């Protein structure tokens, strides 16, 4: 009987459509719409280059998300290693053939599109680890034999991204990966040990940081240290958020963003722009949407019968949460500025692609929740 429940393949197309999580789709669409308006506002109320390409990307990748949803989970499961290695290869390629922009090599030209493999790595690493842990019995997760692969799978891309240099994305990949490893049953004490080792290595690590990275950390500790230089971004961001008040300054009325005081307003600081214009109430609403998306993903994971889907959904939900939390904490001055985009809201094709791909896999888990992986 169990076996019968587990293996229910070959759903009809109609069944698949009905099996979509419409709540999740609704929230993603809602967030996407909000993000288009925010982008519109960031360009002083004109449909400029950023708004246009954001709209195109959102809808293109949204279609991509739906298409991925219909792919059988087993196929995705099989594909996940391959996907990981392709992205890893791209990361290596970035190191030698990457496009340098503002001091770091992050993009690679794939002839038709410029892509940021580090963003794709966020999702592919989760899928890789989910597949890897799917087969390992719980007793063996902590065993010596099974430690190496996850550690290498995690540390190689993190190291590659960190030397681009893109500390923000490296940290996000690392945190997402650790979350998956821990979810899969890795023992707490290993994390404690490695945490201690990390503390010991911190001084060494700091010596490898670029001067601007060091100054970002120092600025985080005291933004007034250099109000026109390194501290400028965080001070202006806090002014924008704080001056929004309860109801905000109104759509297209955010003086901080309109008058260019806000740096990077379409990418990392899009939340600042949003909170200046829509205030505390708007921020709470935006947070609710994010919480709802995370909740839906977690719920899908919960319903899934196979552990690949479970680990993947929980891992992705956690990673998604981490991206949101890091970005918001960053612009609110709770953590140093590290360059982490806000999922879906921020301008950026690779980031959007990565999130939509991740959501597509989640949705596929939902459609094929009763499936067993063959």
């Amino acid at each position: 009987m169990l076996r019968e429940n587990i293996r229910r393949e070959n759903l009809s197309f109609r069944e698949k459509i009905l099996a979509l999580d419409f709540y999740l789709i609704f929230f993603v669409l809602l967030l996407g719409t909000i993000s288009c308006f925010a982008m519109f506002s960031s360009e002083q109320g004109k449909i400029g280059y950023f708004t246009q390409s954001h709209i195109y990307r959102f809808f293109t990748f949204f279609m991509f998300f739906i298409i991925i949803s219909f792919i059988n989970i087993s196929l995705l499961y099989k594909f996940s290693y391959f996907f990981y290695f392709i992205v890893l290869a791209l990361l290596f390629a970035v190191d030698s053939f990457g496009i340098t922009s503002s001091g770091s090599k992050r993009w690679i030209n794939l002839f038709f599109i410029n892509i940021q493999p580090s963003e794709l790595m966020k999702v592919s690493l989760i899928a890789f680890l989910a597949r890897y842990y799917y087969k390992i019995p719980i007793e063996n997760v902590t065993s010596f034999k099974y430690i190496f692969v996850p550690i290498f799978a995690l540390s190689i891309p993190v190291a590659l991204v960190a030397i681009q240099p893109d500390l923000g994305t490296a940290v996000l990949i690392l945190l997402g990966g650790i979350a998956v490893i821990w979810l899969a049953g890795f023992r707490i004490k290993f994390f404690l040990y490695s945490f201690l080792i990390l503390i010991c290595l911190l001084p060494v690590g700091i010596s490898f940081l670029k001067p601007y990275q060091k100054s970002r950390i120092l600025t985080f500790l005291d933004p007034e240290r250099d109000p026109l230089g390194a501290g400028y971004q965080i001070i202006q961001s806090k002014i924008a958020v704080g001056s929004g008040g309860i109801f905000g300054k109104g759509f297209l009325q955010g003086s901080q963003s309109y008058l260019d005081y806000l740096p990077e307003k379409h990418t990392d600081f899009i939340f600042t722009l949003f909170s200046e214009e829509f205030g505390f109430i708007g921020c709470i609403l935006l947070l609710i949407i994010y919480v709802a998306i995370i909740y839906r993903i977690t719920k899908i994971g919960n319903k899934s019968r196979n552990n690949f889907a479970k680990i993947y959904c929980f891992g992705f939900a956690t990673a998604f949460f981490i991206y949101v939390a890091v970005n918001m904490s960053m612009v609110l001055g709770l953590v140093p500025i590290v360059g982490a985009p806000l999922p879906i809201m921020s301008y950026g094709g690779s980031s959007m692609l990565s999130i939509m791909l991740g959501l597509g896999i989640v949705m596929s888990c939902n459609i094929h929740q009763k499936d067993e992986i063959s």
Partner: protein
Amino acid sequence: MRSFLGTFQNKSKLITRRMFIITSVKIVVFISIISRLFYLQISENIKWRSLSDKNRLREWKLAPQRGVIEDYFGKKIAKNTRVFQLHMIPEDVPDLETLFFKLSRMIDFNRRKRNSLVKRLKKRKPWEPIIISDNLSWEEFSRLNLFLHEMQGIKPVVSVARKYLHNGSSSHIIGYVADTSKKDLENSKLLREIDIPGLKTGKTGLEKLLNNEMIGKPGLQRFEVNAYGKRIKELKFIQGTAGQDFKTTLDHEVQEFTGELMKDISGSVCVMDIYTGDIVSLVSSPTFNSNKFVHGISSEDWEVLIKDKKKPLINKPLAGLYPPGSTIKPIVALSALENDVINPQHIIQCTGSIELYGMKYHCWKEKGHGFMNLRSAIKQSCDIYFYETSRRLGVDRLSVTSKQFGLGEKVLTNFVEEKSGVVPNTKWKLKNIGKGWVLGETLITGIGQGYFQTTPIQLCLMMSQLANGGYTIKPRIIDDKYALQGIINDWRREFLSRKEENNLIFDENNAQDTSVKKLFRNKENIKFVLDALYGATNEPMGTSYRSRLTNEFMYAGKTGTSQIRTITAEERELKLKQKDLPYERRDHALFIAFAPYKNPRYSISVVIEHGGTGSSAAAPIAKKVIKKVLDRHKLRKKYQSDLFQEV
């Protein structure tokens, strides 16, 4: 299979359990983000909102329009005119060098101007307009407008600037404005408060004296600016208030006329109303073009002014110090009469020189005047008679009378340029030179030489106070109807009391609040001195007889020649003529007069620096000025209170 299934379910449970832990962590993190938002947006909202406003709002002050200076008849002497300026917005200029080349062919834009402009450009934001030229001629301006379509980024602008409408005759008394310097800011609290770049401030003369009133209240423009400081839109505009206008007592036409007369001559002319103290004319020569200072004087022009030995920048009527020479004689005579030390009929023989206290003192007339009484001594300006008079009078009594009549202290209040001069007496010498008074010095003081130092305006005031019958007046240059009415009322009372002198007891209390105070003991003494001055101008042998005027223009005056150093015995032997001496060593020529002789209204003092004798250099100029002033008296009367016209 069982075990696998069991492991599977265990694993599933473990994952779910761990996810539960992570979810609680997520809730904690989200709550902390929400509380951070609450803290920033609600608790600290006011702080951040004011910081945001500080970011986006910037205020620009607008220079107010400066008050206008008019003459007595309402003619503008210093006004604000349109000036044609050329502004440039650097970011809109495609190629600076091409523009500069084109400009150099159309307007006065040479290499040096180009370099200073490039230097200024570096300090400014590319969207801030910069002034290329602030004073274009109409031809240049219209030429620019014609070719404007060929040049991008420049903007011809019509602006407002100070303009002086005189031929230079009023340059000293009106003064000029120029860019505010660091020193001006240090000295003036008002200028620091106003704080507008490019604001002009009064540097000399009335422009400086009345600066605070004339400057006005600045306007305000509030703009929203972006992060780079570029103005996005205007939010508020407050019009400033223009500065106060001032009417002076000067007669512009007399000023111009006198200025023309004094051309190429170094000296000063000062004309005063003897009753009201109105300064009708105050001319210093040589002069300068005050308009040149408004837009920044060039270093070549400045060099010329600084190096000129005739010192064109000094306001000579107020700041030029000269020994009064023989012009002091009426005061010496009056003082002697008032103190009863001499009888007007007393006769002294002038032989050209006199020996006193072991020294030989000379008369200006080498052969001597012969027998002189007091009247003829004033008329012919006999030095020997006045040596004797001052010997009897003593320097201290002379200094009291001199000071009463206005010598030795500033005539106008608050005029920075003005000097007070010196009226010597025994105390003064002890205090300032540290030596006792020598009797011989009394003699030369009695002919207005020695330590005596007076300004032309003091001499003019002295003449006025003699001519009005011996009453104090307060000279004024700013016309003020209310103050004038008070003066007129005081005079009216004085005239009444003079008419009814015999049947009215003089009211002491009343006399004390009047601005018109008696300076004499016996009015016959004043009359005597004025009559002697009549003789000096209108009778043969009088020193200024050659410059006399007749009928209603008849005036009375006293010449003076002030030596700038003692004449040595050898020079006296050589009989050196003035024109043979180097310029710096020639005598100053002085002349004071009042006119008309009957019912006098005006007094005049003329000083010609290094001009030779008073009768040859100063009196002829005074004659022409008196004629002009009297010609314009009827017109001037129309602007005064009716009752005063009887005088």
